[in-house]
């Protein structure tokens, strides 16, 4: 089996949701898709970013951060993204969800999963890969944001094209309509030490 199949326990095209995976400086690989024994509850559960990487500071040992993405119309065999982490404490991962509850039946929706690394520790600038569940596609640091009003790539006040995968951990932007700007990340919770 190859690396991806080892990490997932199945071929990439078999997964139905994205998973993060990391390689630590110790050489160990950890993947969200795999189970670990929870000694407190006596049960098995998937690896958890907060419990199994942030809480024990293993997040500082990450040298590679991957996002393993399911098959989609644009990538029928799935897709992978990899960030090489040169500086400890710059890697992060989180997800975005929504709940609808109102004048129609209520639903809970997984919107996106994001991996990233801080590229400028002073400003908080970061590069991210985003699996967008609604768009069923992988957004990279070079993807532009589409503006439905102008039907073209979105530009900032200076006329510069805005890249969906280049944002800031202190002011995380929206990358499409239907996602509100996320604002500042809770740095400790996502694993950032800058």
């Amino acid at each position, binding site marked *: 089996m190859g690396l991806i199949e080892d990490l997932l326990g199945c071929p990439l095209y078999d997964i139905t949701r994205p998973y993060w995976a990391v390689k630590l400086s110790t050489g160990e690989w950890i993947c969200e898709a795999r189970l670990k024994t929870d000694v407190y509850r006596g049960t098995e559960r998937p690896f*958890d*970013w*907060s*419990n199994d990487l*942030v809480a024990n500071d293993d997040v500082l040992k990450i040298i590679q951060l991957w996002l393993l993405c399911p098959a989609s119309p644009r990538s029928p065999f799935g897709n992978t993204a990899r960030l090489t982490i040169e500086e400890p404490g710059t890697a*992060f*991962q*989180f*997800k*975005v*969800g*929504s*709940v*609808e*509850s*109102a*004048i*129609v*039946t*209520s*639903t*809970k*929706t997984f*919107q996106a999963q994001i991996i990233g690394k801080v590229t400028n520790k002073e400003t908080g600038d970061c590069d991210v890969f985003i699996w967008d569940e*609604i768009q069923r596609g992988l957004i990279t640091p070079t993807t532009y944001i589409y503006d*439905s009003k102008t039907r073209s790539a979105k530009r900032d006040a200076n006329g510069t094209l805005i890249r969906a995968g280049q944002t800031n951990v202190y002011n*995380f932007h*929206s990358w499409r*309509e*239907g*996602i*509100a*700007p*996320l*604002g*500042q*990340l*809770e740095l400790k*919770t*996502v*694993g950032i030490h800058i």
Partner: protein
Amino acid sequence: MADYTTINMQYNTGTDASPTWTGTAIALSGSAGANELRMAITGGGTSIASASWPFMAKPVSGTTAVTSLYAYTADTTGSQVATYTGDNTKARVLRWNFDNTGNPVTVMQVGFFANNTHTAPSAGTQPPGTNNDAFTNGQSSDTSSTSYIKFNLYGSGLTAGGSQETPAAGTVGTAPTATTGTAGSVTTTAGNWLNANAAWQSGQGFTQYITGVAIPQTATAFNWYMTWVIFIGANITAGTWTPVCTLQYSYS
């Protein structure tokens, strides 16, 4: 901990001073008239099938507030949200209920959409287009192109330090009108209603919406209190509209 196992909306069937929240959660994934909120001006009730729910008559001119709100757990089994009165006189009307399994990593945002495609409303456009609805679009002369739905949230529900924020009974801010609303996001005030107990916000997608003031503490159950006033107007497009109230959150 990671995602919340349970997030739902609860409604008050008691009074403002003595609220009743027990057993009032709008459960997820309802169908066929179950697990939904319904609004009415006249003719609403607690045992009406969804297909027979009464129409609301538009005012001949101007706008008027919808005066009653009901929550249905099954097609013909409902309760009145007793403190929804179509004005700002009651504080404990609705609340988002979170269990203790989540670890939020950003502040939360709340807005209203036509449906769960989260298509941006087209401000002022009547009749609405695909994946838009008459309420969230609003209309130029009725609502100054803000939404017909006005809402308010109290603090962030739970502070970063883990303190539950619960409003006292009574008046909420300045009484909203059909034209109330601010472009973009309005951030809540810690331990208070929006704008330090002043103006409300319009619920128009994520172009007019509310952002929580703080990232709630991880692994802690809490309630985030919210209230609405829904208007209809002479220029709203008649039809069956089912807007949704959307809470966006992030977790690791």
